[in-house]
């Protein structure tokens, strides 16, 4: 009964979404207040019914109702409850329902927090979101119904993929999807602007906090995925340039460019068509990601098992949504020009550079991800594009960008005199240069040109991001402090610097070795000694494991005890590695069990990973910066009450 309620709720949600999508937009066009006022209640209604549907699916999992096909395929009686719940979004149909739930959630948020939007704008935005919901609901109901029945029901299910039975991977999809779906809000604002033909600073001010929130969810979501892959997949990697990873990274890059471009549009009414196109692109790339993952068109570890019919449907949806947006863009963009100017050295120029470089980076990743497909379709042979190409190609635009971040942050709007800029950045520059060369050479024992460029860049951004907060902290009493927007910017950029530093050091100085060890023997890596004390059998709720006890010492002193496991899950019978990790702020020690080699010996992979935590910590700080910036007062006040900023560079970006 519950599954049928869930199914029916979805159908009801669709009919409400149709009203939500169609009526307010017509109402805005005809200036009909009654039609426009359908938007908010419809958004709420859709959210209620989608929630009911989601709840029914979750209930079916928690009750182990194996008469539901989706539950039978992805759950098991012995599965811990928390994973029974996260199994809801563990495969195609359920994750689609999660997507729809989050879309409905964002829509309700927009409906709720849009009191300072003129009603026609609100109606259009909520309307567009409603149309998007319709598309996803139709797709789900027609091709991917999670409530399909399996009669007769099996006694037990096929269990959730052991890789997904993990806390990190349990929350990774909801947060990631919150980001993906969140960009549909910026998209909706863009469509609304194009429908009216008007795009101004107020529009940018409305769009910006929504974009920031989506961006920061996506940042955390990607960081979670990377961190999970590192500790779960057993070989210590944190990014693989896998097509699905790229599919999440591209909207992030476009979203970052969008956040910055919105700043220029809000401040000076410039870059309007850039901003519009970026808003369309960020969401389009999200949709593209959905398509790539669910259509079976690319080879990827992440791909959902699905069939080409679904792929065709998503492709059609993609074509209509993005094609429609691009046609609107072609119609409206030419009329958006303004005649405001700026000098060659100015914040505008740096933000333009930012846009250009990020767009190039996005295009490069898109190209690398799709090239194998393109070559295959045109029968130019099957080619392979892997990490070596991506690392080289991505570094090309990013290297100049990371250095420019430091300068652009301190450039004034309209015109920045060279002298004062150099003056302000001289000391941070020297500090970064010194630290950037000293740290790899003396701390990690090797000087390399490329490595140093990376570490100098990392330190550079970190130091330069602290300049304004430091000045503000030491300011005279009575002078205004930094706005939250500016604090957020400094924080986020500091996070970027941390990230850059972490990536450079871990890429250059990781030590990794595979060894054969017997109990009692020890291996020396990076100045640490790893001793395999013993091995024993361990029983988990739905798995059995061999657990190794590894004692780590440094110069005789005890450092840590790790317990890597080799698990065999009862149902799916496949071996899984749980690595033992000793995490530190400045290094990780990573041990994973391989296979038994006979003669009481086991193969063991040991890794020393310096500064790897900086990667995810940097990302978290970026996201924190986003939260702070999004909570700036001016987004919560009406336009006339905004404070007028001075021409100091600490004015809000």
């Amino acid at each position, binding site marked *: 009964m519950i599954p049928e309620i869930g199914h029916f709720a979805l159908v009801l949600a669709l009919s409400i979404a149709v009203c939500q999508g169609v009526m307010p937009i017509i109402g805005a066009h005809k200036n009909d207040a009654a039609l426009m006022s359908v938007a908010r209640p419809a958004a709420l209604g859709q959210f209620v019914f989608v929630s009911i549907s989601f709840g029914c699916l979750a209930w079916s999992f928690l009750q182990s109702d194996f008469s539901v096909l989706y539950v039978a395929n992805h759950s098991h009686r012995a599965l811990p409850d928390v994973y029974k719940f996260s199994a809801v979004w563990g495969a195609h149909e359920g994750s689609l329902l999660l997507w729809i739930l989050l879309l409905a959630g964002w829509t309700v948020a927009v409906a709720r927090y849009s009191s300072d939007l003129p009603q026609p704008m609100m109606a259009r935005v909520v309307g567009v979101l409603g149309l998007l919901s319709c598309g996803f609901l139709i797709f789900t109901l027609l091709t991917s119904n999670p409530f399909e029945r399996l009669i007769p029901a099996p006694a037990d299910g096929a269990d959730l993929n052991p890789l997904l039975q993990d806390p990190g991977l349990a929350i990774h999809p909801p947060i990631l999807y919150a980001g993906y779906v969140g960009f549909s809000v910026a998209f909706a604002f863009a469509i609304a602007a194009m429908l009216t033909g008007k795009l101004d600073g107020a529009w940018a001010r409305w769009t910006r906090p929504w974009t920031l929130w989506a961006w920061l969810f996506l940042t955390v979501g990607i960081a979670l995925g990377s961190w999970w892959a590192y500790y779960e997949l057993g070989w210590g990697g944190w990014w693989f340039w896998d097509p699905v990873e790229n599919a999440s990274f591209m909207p992030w890059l476009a979203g970052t460019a969008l956040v910055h471009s919105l700043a220029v549009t809000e401040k000076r009414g410039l870059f309007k068509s850039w901003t519009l196109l970026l808003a369309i692109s960020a969401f389009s790339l999200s949709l593209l990601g959905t398509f790539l993952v669910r259509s079976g068109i690319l080879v990827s570890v992440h791909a959902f098992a699905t069939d080409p019919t679904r792929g065709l449907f998503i492709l059609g949806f993609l074509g209509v949504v993005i094609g429609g947006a691009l046609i609107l863009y072609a119609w409206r963009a030419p009329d958006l020009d303004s005649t*405001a100017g700026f000098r060659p050295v100015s914040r505008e120029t740096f933000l333009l550079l930012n846009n250009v470089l990020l767009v190039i980076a996005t295009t490069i990743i898109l190209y690398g991800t799709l090239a194998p497909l393109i070559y295959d379709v045109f029968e130019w042979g099957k080619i392979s594009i892997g990490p070596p190409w991506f690392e080289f190609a991505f570094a090309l635009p990013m290297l100049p960008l990371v250095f420019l971040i430091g300068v652009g942050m301190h450039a004034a709007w309209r015109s920045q005199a060279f002298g004062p800029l150099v003056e302000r950045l001289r000391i941070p520059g020297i500090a970064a240069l010194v630290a950037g060369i000293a740290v790899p050479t003396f701390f990690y024992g090797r000087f390399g040109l490329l490595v140093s460029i990376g570490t100098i860049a990392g330190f550079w951004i970190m130091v330069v991001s602290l300049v304004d907060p430091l000045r503000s902290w030491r300011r005279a009493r009575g002078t205004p402090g930094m706005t939250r927007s500016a604090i957020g910017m400094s924080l986020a950029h500091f996070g970027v610097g941390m990230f850059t530093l972490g990536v450079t050091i871990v890429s250059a100085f990781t030590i990794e070795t*595979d060894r054969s060890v017997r109990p009692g023997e020890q291996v020396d890596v990076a100045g640490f000694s790893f001793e395999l004390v013993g091995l024993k059998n361990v029983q988990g709720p739905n798995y059995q494991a061999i657990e190794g006890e590894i004692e780590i010492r440094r110069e005789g002193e005890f450092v840590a005890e790790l317990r890597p496991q080799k698990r065999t899950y009862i149902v799916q019978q496949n071996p899984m590695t749980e690595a033992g990790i000793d995490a530190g702020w400045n290094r990780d020690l990573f041990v994973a069990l*391989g296979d038994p080699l006979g003669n009481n010996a086991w193969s063991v992979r040991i890794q020393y990973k310096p500064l790897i935590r900086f990667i995810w910590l940097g990302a978290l700080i970026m996201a924190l910066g986003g939260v702070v910036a999004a909570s700036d007062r001016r987004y919560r006040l009406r336009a006339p009450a905004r404070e007028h900023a001075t021409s100091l560079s600490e004015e809000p970006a």
Partner: protein
Amino acid sequence: MRQTLILILTLLVSASAIAIDTELAFEDPEMQARYEELIAEVRCLVCQNQNIKDSNVFLASDLRREIRRMMSEGMSDAEIADFLVARYGEFVLYNPRKSGRTLVLWVTPALLLGIGAIVLVRVVRDRMNMPVDNDVLES
């Protein structure tokens, strides 16, 4: 559909086990380093987007064994790559080689940077001749 699911799940999980090269393959650290670099650049064709260094399936260990043999026979990296490509095609190498139609893969990033530079110069040149004080913010 179910079979595809099981296949993909199996391959997914096989990705979680680590590669078996347990002894150092070569005594000489330079050869060992070269070996590790080589196997990181060869694709495991049975897997979903993994190299033969990290993969546990027997095709991966067979290919590792062949590479070790070729290296001890004195073949160069290019000759080893040729051997593999002659049998499996360019797809087996993660790093597309610089030749003919794969050349465009290496040139494209630089080309995009060039286009970006042109766009930048054009916009800056247009805007520096416009007045800086006539913002029209609200419309």
